[in-house]
């Protein structure tokens, strides 16, 4: 713990990088997974393609994906995009199923009622289906966020920033305190982000608790 206070500037700096590298992929991945999840909830064919694909993408080790990304998309080796792309892919892989499950679970009589009231598909999706799907979607988002925060560190093995830098440097110099500082930072960040999303879910879906 003392390492954090003795090296506050450095700790703060890697915290910022770590946060950026984990949150940006969650946001992009989340946005992209909504149409994909919707597709999967509507079409058995889409499901048959997307779910196995998501599972396979998910099994590619993060270090490998981070290492291979610059070769595949032709960017500089020290570009942060090399972490952002793999983590976005993992987020989508996780979220597609969550979103699809959540949308499929919207009760048929509710959508029928919305249709009967003359809601057009887009309006129905935005004002009825998606809000009702939010609790399950946010549960998925929590898992994706926490796992991203924990995975960003892997990027340090190829020279990218975040708490992982403290791991590799601490390792090279046999400095347990430094590794521990990064570990604490990661866990605190994950717990905070998780709590924030939990809270957000409660605020956005007050009906979910009504009558319990």
């Amino acid at each position, binding site marked *: 713990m003392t390492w954090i206070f003795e090296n506050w500037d450095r700790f703060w700096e890697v915290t910022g990088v770590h946060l950026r590298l984990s949150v940006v992929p969650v946001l992009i991945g989340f946005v992209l997974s909504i149409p994909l999840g919707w597709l999967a909830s509507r079409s058995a064919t889409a499901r048959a393609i997307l779910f196995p694909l998501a599972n396979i993408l998910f099994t*590619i*080790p993060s270090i490998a994906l981070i290492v291979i990304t610059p070769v595949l998309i032709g960017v500089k080796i020290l570009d942060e995009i090399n972490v952002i792309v793999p983590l976005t892919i993992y987020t989508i892989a996780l979220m597609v199923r969550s979103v699809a499950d959540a949308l499929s679970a919207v009760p048929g009589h509710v959508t029928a009622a919305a249709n009967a009231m003359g809601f057009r598909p887009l309006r129905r999706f935005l004002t009825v289906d998606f809000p009702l799907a939010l609790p399950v979607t946010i549960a998925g988002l929590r898992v994706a966020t926490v796992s991203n925060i924990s995975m960003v560190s892997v990027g340090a093995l190829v020279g990218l920033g975040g708490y992982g830098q403290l791991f590799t440097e601490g390792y090279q110099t046999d400095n347990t305190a430094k590794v521990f500082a990064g570990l604490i930072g990661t866990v605190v960040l994950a717990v905070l982000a998780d709590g924030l999303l939990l809270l957000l879910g409660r605020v956005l879906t007050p009906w979910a608790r009504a009558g319990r």
Partner: protein
Amino acid sequence: MGGWLFDPAHWSGPTGIPVRLLEHLGYTLMTLLIAAVIAIPLGAFVGHTGKGGFVVVGLSNALRALPTTAVLILVVLWAGLGDFPVYVALVLLAIPPIMAGTYAGIRAVDPVTVDAARGVGMRESGVLLKVEIPNALPLIYGGFRGAALQVVATATIAAYTGAGGLGRLVFDGLALQEFGQMLAGAVLVALLAVLVDLGFAGLQRLTVSPGLRPVGTGGKT
């Protein structure tokens, strides 16, 4: 690009692909065994008694956030080289999904069923072992298979501290800037993950009562 993978020279000797595959599989199965021995009884106990559920959930979430690289490095710095640090890091990774799956599975068993079991005079141990656990199996397998996927993918990191497994291909490929070797490592890990999952899916089919339909969960670190 596939040249490295299909070069016969890389398929033999003490550092050949078969050896790396077996090492990787060994880490995975041993890890899952240790994690299951720890996590299933804990999850079952808490699920059965209903006490300390929030501890299980909280602990699972906190463990999920634990960066495996850091755990691996800390244990290496503390205990030295070898397979021990690899197992510590991977077991900690595998415990949360298995424990959460077991806990959720037991909680989800219909209370009427449990009551009926008590009603016919079963002891508590019988209720747990003969009624709750068999009924919870689909969710337990769900957690277990999620853990298996994570462990196969993450065991790659072990190579960072000099251990074996398919991660060697990824890290050596990185060090040598041999793209083909890195790619071979990634593909083989993904392939192994799919095979391991198929294996457990088969096991699930054999051991779960046909009256219960399978479900799956996942998570990754």
